[in-house]
């Protein structure tokens, strides 16, 4: 009897140590892989599907890396999609002068908008969600002004730049750089500490202004790069460019397990898990013939359930 009780206690402590909340996103990914693997009779992992997933993953993975830095500090950015749209549009306009200007112009555009977001949030003290919502609408207007409401095309030869090695190279480069910046660097550690307790970091003598400004610039720069990638993928820039990015990227980061409140429990692996979950789910649903409406419904439900299961309520007295 005593032996049985001891065993059961050991079992409970092992489960506690495993931290179910931390492994839930991984379990979610395993479920998605098995469900769509069997559901589509393996079609979801065919060469064609993997290519389609790679196309989607480039945007979601890189965007989610940028978003992870913002979320780790307990912040929020609603403008990432529209910043990508503006960057894509300015890059498309730049190709009229010289196609090789598209990349720097896109990146600089994104960085400048990110810097403006950061300045208003950090220096002027306006709430992040209001600032980025306002920026999102300003960017939408800006796209229409730059393009005059038309679709702007890029030279056709630029489409050849969008190759599998480029996509894999970008994913690997950003993955490695993002991992070291997020998990191993001083900046990453301070960012997470700001998410846990901004006052404690301030009291420790760290100048937090720069640390708070950087994530928005990083995300803006990444949105700029994604604008360029979108341009060489589709060959066009329009008012709808980037319209789905924000929800996809936020979904990926949160589904992967980055807590909405940020803090030290934010992990880089969440970005990878979230991206894989979202892309496999989207591709799997398309193969199964799920309508766009039902896909959105399922994504919404999965989003809520996963966050509810992985949300860290331990340090929160009140959930608002």
């Amino acid at each position, binding site marked *: 009897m005593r032996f049985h009780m001891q065993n059961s206690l050991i079992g409970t402590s092992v489960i506690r140590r495993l931290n179910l909340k931390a492994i839930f996103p991984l379990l979610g990914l395993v479920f998605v892989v098995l469900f769509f693997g069997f559901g589509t009779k393996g079609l979801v992992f065919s060469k064609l599907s993997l290519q389609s997933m790679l196309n989607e993953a480039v945007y979601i993975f890189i965007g989610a890396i940028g978003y992870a830095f913002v979320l780790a500090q307990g912040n929020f950015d609603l403008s990432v999609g529209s910043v990508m749209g503006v960057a894509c549009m300015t890059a498309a306009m730049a190709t009229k002068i010289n196609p090789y200007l598209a990349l720097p112009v896109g990146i600089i555009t994104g960085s400048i908008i990110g810097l403006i977001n950061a300045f208003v949030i950090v220096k002027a003290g306006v709430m992040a969600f209001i600032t980025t919502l306002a920026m999102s*609408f300003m960017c939408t207007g800006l796209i229409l002004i730059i393009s005059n409401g038309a679709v702007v095309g890029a030279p056709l030869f630029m489409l050849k730049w969008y190759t599998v090695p480029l996509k894999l190279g970008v994913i690997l480069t950003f993955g490695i750089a993002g991992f070291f910046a997020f998990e191993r660097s001083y900046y990453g550690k301070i960012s997470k500490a700001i998410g846990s307790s901004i006052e404690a970091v301030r009291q420790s003598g760290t100048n937090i202004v720069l640390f708070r400004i950087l994530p928005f610039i990083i995300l803006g720069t990444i949105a700029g790069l994604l604008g360029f990638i979108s341009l060489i993928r589709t060959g066009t820039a329009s008012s709808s460019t980037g319209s789905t990015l924000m929800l996809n990227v936020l979904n990926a980061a949160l589904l992967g397990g980055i807590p909405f409140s940020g803090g030290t429990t934010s992990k880089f692996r969440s970005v990878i898990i979230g991206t894989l979950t979202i892309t496999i789910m989207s591709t799997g649903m398309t193969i199964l013939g799920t309508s766009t409406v039902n896909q959105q419904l399922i994504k919404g439900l999965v989003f809520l359930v996963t966050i509810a299961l992985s949300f860290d309520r331990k340090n929160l007295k009140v959930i608002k």
Partner: protein
Amino acid sequence: MKNKIFGILGVFVIPFFLFIFFSLVTPGFGLHSLPIIISQSMIPTMIGFGMCVMFLCGLMDFSVGCRVIFAGVAGAALAQYWGLVGFIIGCIGGSLVSALLVAYLYRYLKIPSMVVSLGFVLIGEALSYSGAELFGFTSLIHIPPSVSVWFAFPYNILWVTGAGIVFYLLLYHTKIGFHIIAVGEDELLAKNMGVIPQNVKTIAYLLSGVFIAIAAFLQTSYAGFLSVTLGGGTMAMVFKPIMGVMIGLTLIRLWNNSPVLIILGEICLTIIFNGLIAAGLPDVFQSIVLGLFLLTILGISGNTEKFRESIRRSHVRKMDPAGY
């Protein structure tokens, strides 16, 4: 008392001067623009009332636009069978059901209201779209003119005025209004005082649902049709109301009357848009002007202490440049 009167006058002076300014500067703008300005301000004002209840309770809701569409679809569906009565019942029912859904998701999932609202935007848009298809509509939902006439100008002013009075009485003269403000200010303290925050928040969601239902009446009747979008498109409907609420809550130190301040905030925004369009600025500039206006107002209002301090320092520097 004197300060209060000056405060109230100050609040009304802002839209008045904006109107006079644009009337003088732009030739196409004047008294004849007033009905358009008021009409255009009514929908964001109603959505703003719904959002303000949530704000005051400490909650953030991006799903209000989606809830307007959801209610509008339900109203338009019932209007096919029972005309005006069906439309009203459908809008109110749809709005309350969607508000309850969000409230219970927030209550039982125990995640931030902002996240719940983002998730609900996806769910609610999909449900609205499926609902519209079920009742034989396309992505554009039309209601008969015999129904929409009751919510068009000048009746829309009556609806908003009535809603504003209800909003004021609820917030400043009822127990639940005080509880909502108390929970928004300090939830833990309110809890210790015997208030049950979860119940208060659910009621706040339901009250916002009532205002969102009226917004659905006005939105559906404004152009005679309602556009059902997917992919988070309804979040765009949040922006203008949020600005009116923010401007209203910023001016609250002048006069503690949020419904009037929200109405005036929305009217100010509409005057600026219409004034700029009349001045020849293309309407695509609207969103840029909107964004800049909001950030400027919030930036200034949130830093008044800093500005005062820097002015005080510059005075000290002038008085004693050597010793400073």
